[in-house]
């Protein structure tokens, strides 16, 4: 509880005090402390979780393309403010040969570079800033890091699940939906991957959530700061968007929410402790996530029951299986009908693909 109050207090300070300047500099953006090294940049499209420290900057998602300049300005401003607040090293000996006054001026040093972007999805409001943000950053090369690739050090690395790259690119000779400069530079195929080393004191784990919002979703877990950026499987502004055409499903959403809940350890009775940056909307925690999980599970159960009874999509919509949650979670941009339709389509058994008939003589009896 005390830590939560401190977080809220810090948030109030940041919005009402010096941070208000930051917001003005960032235009429509708002920067809030989450916990440890992690900050939320809100208002840039999808939420951006930012790790800021002496290792540089790591972003979870890069926001919508039109907001990129403001995002970069907000991050630079945040770095500047944090540098100004940093206390010089405390020396209790050796004052005959050295002092701390010079170190107190270190805030004028250039900010550390943006090193990584991790994409939770391929949606434009999450990857739109990839190219420009990556170009503003830097990858340290040498050792076994891209020693033979000429431009490897020219920007930040972009990490994502393999399907994000598939969605953003196109086969050779075809027009890709996004420029190659925005594509992930490092992808993974397995259940999860880890950034190879601590970053700003955090072990950073990237966990793939199969077939949820899309087929390319990841959550990002900052293990020391104890913050999870969930991407769009958890959205505090409306029902989770399920993009069935891109491999999403309501069952995947439920599984993903339970996966995140498994990682959450609350500080006090489902409050605080592991903090959560959703894909959109306010900062949450385990309690918020559990309510959301309950709701999506209950709606999944209702729609699945209707599917088993053979009800059509129109009949399911007419039954209003989300009516008790609509006043909070249905919006004009993503209506209850849109959510129900996506849930329904992802629950209806897929028709088996037509197969070539097998000659009777070869059929196993």
């Amino acid at each position, binding site marked *: *509880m005390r830590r*939560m*109050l401190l*977080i*809220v207090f810090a*948030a*109030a300070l940041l*919005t*009402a005090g010096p941070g208000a300047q930051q917001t003005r500099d960032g235009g429509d953006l*708002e920067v*809030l402390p989450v916990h440890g090294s992690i900050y*939320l940049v*809100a208002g840039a499209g999808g939420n951006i979780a930012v790790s800021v420290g002496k290792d540089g900057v790591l972003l979870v998602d890069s926001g919508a393309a039109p907001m990129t300049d403001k995002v970069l300005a907000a991050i630079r401003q945040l770095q500047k403010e944090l540098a100004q607040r940093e206390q010089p090293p405390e020396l209790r000996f050796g004052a005959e040969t050295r002092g701390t006054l010079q170190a107190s001026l270190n805030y004028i040093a250039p900010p550390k570079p943006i090193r990584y972007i991790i994409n939770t999805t391929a949606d434009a409001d999450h990857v739109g800033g990839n190219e420009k943000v990556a170009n503003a950053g830097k990858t340290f090369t040498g050792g076994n890091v891209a020693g033979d690739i000429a431009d490897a050090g020219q920007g930040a690395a972009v990490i994502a699940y393999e399907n994000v790259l598939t969605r953003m690119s196109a086969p050779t000779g075809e027009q890709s939906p996004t420029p190659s400069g925005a594509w992930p530079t490092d992808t993974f195929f397995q259940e999860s991957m880890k950034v190879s080393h601590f970053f700003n004191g955090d072990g950073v784990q990237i966990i793939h959530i199969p077939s949820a919002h899309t087929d390319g979703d990841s959550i990002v877990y900052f293990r020391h700061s104890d913050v999870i950026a969930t991407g769009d499987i958890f959205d505090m502004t409306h029902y989770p968007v399920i993009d069935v055409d891109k491999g999403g499903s309501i069952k995947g959403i*439920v*599984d993903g929410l*339970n996966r995140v*809940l498994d990682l959450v350890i609350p500080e*006090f*009775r*489902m*409050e*605080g402790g592991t*903090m959560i940056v959703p894909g959109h*909307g*306010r*900062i*949450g*925690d*385990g*309690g*918020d996530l*559990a*309510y959301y*999980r*309950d709701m999506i*599970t*209950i709606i999944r*159960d*209702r729609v699945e*029951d209707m599917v088993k009874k053979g009800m059509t999509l129109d009949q399911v919509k007419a*039954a209003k*299986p989300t*009516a*008790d*949650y*609509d*006043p*909070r979670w249905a919006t004009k941009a993503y209506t209850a009908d849109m959510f129900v339709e996506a849930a329904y389509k992802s629950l209806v058994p897929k028709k088996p693909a037509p197969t070539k008939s097998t000659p009777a003589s070869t059929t196993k009896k």
Partner: protein
Amino acid sequence: MRQMTAAAVLAVTLAATLARAPARAQQDPEGAGPSFGFGGVDLSGEWTPVRAEDNTGNTELGDWVGIPMNEAARLRAMAWVASIQTLPEWQCRPHAASYISRGPSQLRISKEVDPTSRETTAWHMEWLRSIDKAIYMDGRPHPSANAPHTWGGYSTGEWIGDMLKITTTHVKEEYLKRDGVFHSDQITVTSYLIRRGNYLTFILVENDPVYLTEPLVRSTEYQIDTHQNISPYPCNVVEEVDRPKGIVPHNMPGTPEYTNDVKDFANRYHIPWDVITAGAATMYPEIQARVKAAPAGNGKR
């Protein structure tokens, strides 16, 4: 009906308190202007609930009378099943700021004092079930809409005469009654603390644009108890039910369980179904005529 009583209490008490509120209470000792830290009365102490007001501790399933709930809230309450409390996430859920005073529960009020100015910078209200509700008196704003929500919410206070007015935002989604009637995380609670000697009245005025059609007004009465010590209230999460992972208990629409609780309540007290589901109308006296006019057994739907 309880809420109607509370509303009447609120109106009378507020009027009486404002009428005798000395002007000095809204100014600092130098008379230089409004002050949040000085003024009012000392609220600190150990307070025990006066149970005679109404019995809030034994909520009955299906009892929605007196709650200005909308259709969505009613549907959600019908789907609610008590075994959801056995999920690990909810076993130790405390009552939020919107409900905890209805526990009922003992209350401790303490104050933070700035050692230099000696102004009261915050009041703390702490009930048995362990939420510390801080009420900041230094004129600070409420956090951004993007900030986290807590069970206790974020509260600021100001003196209106000798009455402390508290505005609470950033409360987590939580129940208004322990029978599945929920409010959303959009709720705003305006509350009032009124001390009259050894008695303390705490009034809640709850506005939820998601699930309430009108403000819900409730009051709780306390009496000073100088021998009270609020005991610890630890809570450990255990595996209460052996069920497959991912199950969330709820009543499915169309099943008997969906309406059983409320029908039982209606039949037990001979309250017509259309009264129980009347939402805000159940707060007003006119509803009594509908109850009396109903034939026996009309609770059945």
